């Protein structure tokens, strides 16, 4: 690749990752609004169950560890990308994907058992806030997994191109960011809910 082209790619990388970072900051504010709502409504149980009645800490801990590990493997994938090691890259992305899917499965089964027990979002303001906050995070995870599938597809088809490199960089930011948000969901919703 010629030098001007390389400089252009570098600038494109910088511009895109800055833009994506700023988007993540705006997403933080979105989550902050949901957190604030949860904090205001967490005691409004309207005769339904309270946080300590329904949350199971071991399950939340499992989810946390899975997501943390997937954040770590995602980092390893980005490291493999730096060495242009396609095979390692795909392996680590695959591990990240499987961990992401298991996280989502556990979350959905938690939702499912709550709804079956009659504790859906319709039961109280507390449950509305809980489902929306955790569900929004889950929705982000779903989008991330879909994105990852597309990236792996492109990797198989076109190999490591500057474009897919940029996409992976952004995906890495997204995935680490989702892990960060989850730390606060784990702490504020689950730990503090059970502790209070």
């Amino acid at each position, binding site marked *: 690749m010629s030098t001007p082209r390389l400089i252009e790619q570098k600038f494109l990388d910088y511009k895109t990752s*800055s833009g994506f*970072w*700023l988007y993540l*900051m*705006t997403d*933080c*504010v979105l989550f*902050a*609004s949901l*957190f*604030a709502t949860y*904090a*205001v409504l967490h005691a*409004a149980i*309207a005769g339904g169950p309270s946080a300590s009645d329904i949350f199971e*800490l071991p399950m939340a*801990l499992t989810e*946390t*560890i899975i997501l*943390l*590990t997937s*954040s*770590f493997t995602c*980092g*390893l994938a980005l*490291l493999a990308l*730096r*060495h242009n090691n396609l095979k390692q890259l795909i392996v680590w992305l695959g591990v990240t994907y499987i961990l992401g899917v298991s996280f989502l499965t556990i979350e959905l089964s938690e939702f499912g058992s709550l709804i079956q027990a009659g504790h859906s979002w319709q039961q109280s303001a507390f449950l509305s806030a809980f489902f929306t906050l955790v569900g929004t995070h889950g929705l982000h995870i779903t989008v991330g997994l879909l994105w990852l599938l597309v990236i792996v597809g492109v990797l198989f088809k076109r190999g490591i191109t500057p474009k897919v490199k940029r996409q992976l960089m952004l995906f890495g*930011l997204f995935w*680490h*960011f989702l*892990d*960060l948000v989850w*730390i*606060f969901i*784990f*702490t*504020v919703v689950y*730990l*503090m809910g*059970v*502790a*209070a």
Partner: protein
Amino acid sequence: MARRDNDYQRTLINYVVGFLASLALTFCAYVLVSGHILGGITLLLVIGGLALVQMLVQLLFFLHMADESRPRFRLVSFGFMAMILVIVVAGSLWIMYHLNYNMMGMSPSQKDTYMTTQKDKGF
């Protein structure tokens, strides 16, 4: 090539350290809650603090915030976001707490019923 390998090593160590530290912090918070070691407001403050520390760990070791070259766009935007976030969340909680306090700890529906009964009494 040697420099590149060095860089690789350093990043790998970063990830491993970040991962282990995050795991440790998560377990700490978990044990504090499930083992009933602390209680009340102290517990909430400590686990909140642990979450903040874990955030810093991940920002440094996973998102490499310290390595950013000037003008440090990410750091500045993160700082501004954090400031707004604290204002909005803390402000909302402060406002809503005082609202509830002034409503004598009633929810709006309880307040409705209360007002109606007072009105029926001829107030």
